[in-house]
């Protein structure tokens, strides 16, 4: 039996609180993943193990689900997630320039976190806001009709 240290116990209590409203069944796996990610910013290994235990689902299945959906992150993410749309409309309207501009500004490779922990930058296929192309999204907020300069300014708003 693994030694249960104080920290682990604390973490378990935290997870228990996070999930307390969910039924302890397999159907709860996805909502549980969402709740834990919302609270921790990503899905740490101990969180996945707790969810497996809580929902009585093999860890391999939980991990499989967590790695299947692009909404889930297994590594810590920046405080803000920036998604640049790469859909057809955005592509034509110059999404790539925006993406390159942001990569340059943040000094990171796609999917990485800035050294200050503020941003993660990724692309998405389509945000369904083609009329606003080119579009980017910071956390839950959509920014349409962007230029590279505007996009850079948007990020500055989140810096403070």
């Amino acid at each position, binding site marked *: 039996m693994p030694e249960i240290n104080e920290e682990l116990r604390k973490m378990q209590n935290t997870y228990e609180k996070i999930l307390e409203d969910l039924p302890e069944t397999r159907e709860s796996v996805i909502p549980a993943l969402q709740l834990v990610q919302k609270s921790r910013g990503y899905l740490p290994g101990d969180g996945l193990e707790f969810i497996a235990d809580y929902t009585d689902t093999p860890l*391999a299945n939980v991990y499989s689900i967590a790695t299947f959906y692009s909404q889930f992150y297994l590594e810590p993410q920046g405080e803000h997630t920036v998604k640049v749309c790469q859909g057809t409309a955005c592509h034509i309207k110059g999404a790539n320039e925006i993406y390159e501009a942001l990569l340059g500004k943040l000094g990171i490779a796609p999917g990485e976190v800035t050294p200050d922990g503020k941003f993660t930058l990724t692309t998405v296929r389509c945000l369904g806001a083609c009329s606003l192309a080119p579009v980017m999204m910071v956390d839950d907020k959509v920014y349409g009709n962007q230029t590279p300069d505007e996009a850079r300014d948007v990020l500055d708003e989140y810096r403070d």
Partner: protein
Amino acid sequence: MPNPTATELVEIEINGEKFAGEQGSTILEIARENGIEIPKLCHMDQLEPTGACRMCLVELVDSGKLVTSCTHPAEDGMKVETDNERIHRSRKLNLELLLSNNTEVVDCDSDETRCEFSKLLKQYDVEVESYAGEKRNHENIEDNPFFKLDHDKCILCGRCVRACEEIRGRSAIDFVGRGFDTKIAPPLDRSLTEGTCQFCGQCVDACPTGALTSKMRIEKGDPTQVEKTSTVCTYCGVGCRMNVYTKDGEVVDVAPDPEAPANDIRICSKGRFGFDFVNRDDRLKQPLIKEKDEFREASWDEALDLVSEKLSEIKENHGSNAIAGLSSATCTNEENYLFQKFMRATVGTNGVDHCARLCHASTVAGLVRAFGSGAMTNSIGEIKDADTILITGSNTTESHPVIGLEVKKAVENGADLIVVDPREIDIAKEDATMYLRQNSGSDVAWIMGMIRVILEEGLWDEKFVEARTENFEEMREAAEEFTPDRVEELTGIDKKKLRKAARLYANADRGSILFAMGITQHSHGTDNVLAIANLAMVTGNVGKESTGVNPLRGQNNVQGACDLGALPNVYSGYQNVDLEENQKKFEDLWDVDLDPNPGLTVVEMIREAEKGNVNGMYIMGENPMVSDPDLGHVEKGLENLDFLVVQDIFMTETAEYADVILPAASFLETSGTFTNTERRVQHFDRALEPKGNSRPDWEIISQVSTRMGYPMKYGSADEITDEIADVTPIYTGITAERVANKQGLQWPCVTGDCTGTKYLHKGQFSRGLGKFHALHYREPAELPDGDYPFTLTTGRMYYHFHTRSMTGRSQGLDELVPEAYMEINPADAEALEVDSGDLVRVSSRRGEIEIKAKISDRVPSETVFIPFHFAEAAANRLTNSVLDPIAKIPELKVSAVNLEKVG
């Protein structure tokens, strides 16, 4: 899947011909039943269909639609084509696309599962270059001792994932990631050794591409050029039939035989990956003679002459009973029969026994008294249909893994499972409806307590008791003393729980009891077994399909060794030696005078050797220096012998004490029959030539006997099989010819044309009426006290077998669990300031060992558990050799010990 309750049939037309099938069948099922081949990759008959690979596409003639036949239900009047140009094109395209991401294909065309993809590529004439595309670049999985997953060969059919989940219930692996980057892997990038994997190899056996392959096969060169022999596993009593793949005189792989009667397509880690010991260089290959405490090699003639000379000398000087023999539960029926014949006819003593004495002697004694037969009443395949299962004293999932899976199936089918065990073993944690923890050695109390509840609440089967049993009133009276309060006091089982469990079992339609060493290895083991028989009879839970009393035998042929008379009181087929008509019968058959007195049992032989009353011993394939209780005394006994001959495949701890060692062939190098725990006699052929100069045991015994003046001239093991059938009533129909198939025959098989017996005591018990026994409570012989405050209990673990003479020499199994450990409760560990991995000195009145602690809440406080496999920290240095007065089984399950942290 066909619905078993549906009786309605559907008729469909396949390729212009009409076929009927059960309502609810898929197109694929009806095609398969009628021998029509439809190719498939993601589907296996034993798995739920998913329709993922699209290889089983067939065309519905009316609509022109292509549908997956593995998932599409057959509807009445449906017309189906299973092959035409369009289907062919579609399948070929599928294969080309599957291949486009793979860099490697195992090129083979045998009937092995691993060749399925390769064969389809050839059949559909698929060229590797058709759609050569981007290749995945995953790191292969090989950080475990047994197998490798090569992602470059994987087509992501998911069979391994589903086999692991659906057949084994482990879910150790799953799809990871999405789209092009998907791979099969254990969770969190961990090693398989860290998760739920039990290395049974079910995934390897399910893989249609060879992406999953055992490491041994990869190391031993071209994995496709191998020979296949169907044989029977020699670990545990399940008797798994398996195919052994050999090349250049070595084992290169093992897989379950798909036609296996007892195990279906399953096998455990020991059977799948634990037979590399056969290849080892330290096998005994030449006879050895001890001179001045050193062994030197000798010729067979010299060694056999010396053995016959020395044994004859002892016989001459001290009489036949000064020689004792240990036969082997690992050897074949033929070898066991011959060994007891040799001891009785050639040496002239009934002093022959084997390690069944240490495991199920009390079962045989108890069940023969109660029912008239000491074997499992039912078959392994019936377990899944029981509606209530009571497991006690059996760590089923570890000691009999395939039977453990059948119990899990029963639970999935809705059965209630009651587990009564001092340790909260996996099956108690994972599958039990109720888990009851009794104090070690208090079994008569809880079982009789349950009976009392059942009688009190009127839940007993009056009709059954009336018609089929005797001595009920005496038993009923004895049960009176086991009031729930007293039982709670004696056993520690909460009285309400006991009552609930009693009701659950009593209300079963098909109640099955499974038990093993936890019941038998006590100084009152026979009483424990009689109590179980009482419980089954009082509720009428015996003599029906899926309903009965099932002792799970521990070694591959311990049932057979008992059946064939490797016991001091019976000839083959449980014919008592002290019955004059039996003595006469065998004197006539064997043409020799026989001793009418039963001989010594295992522990008695050792005691008499220590006293100087036994001067010579012949030990075939047994290792008492690890397996027997109170090893200090075993050592003295063996040292005190004038002459010891050991016949084995390795230099065991016991062989070190021998004067002559005779090198035996392993089971893969001989042929014969084994009898598994469900009484199934299974024939197997030789897969390899004997290693070095080793010889099959039956040949060696014959040669010693002939030299001692009692000629044994058998041309083959089959001749012995036939002699057994001639002299053994329960084996009458089990001749070499009739048993030479994969299904074998289940005894009793008392006529020449019998088809075997699936379950016992139908209509009437073997002894006529079932006999109840009045039982009273007796404590274990040694209870914890101030000096030795802990209870020690011993047993097995999943990855090792018996004294590790085989599994300890299997590279992978030994790598996985290389050393002994002691399970200790967290509270006790804290009090002793012991962490997992710390060395603890464990002492009893008989000896002491040092062993690493493993903190575990499986064991209750004040009880520790040590697996008995490990010679270097041998649990049997500590155990008590006090015997059950009837069965002479030692009390291996309860001894008092003291614990001290070392350093």
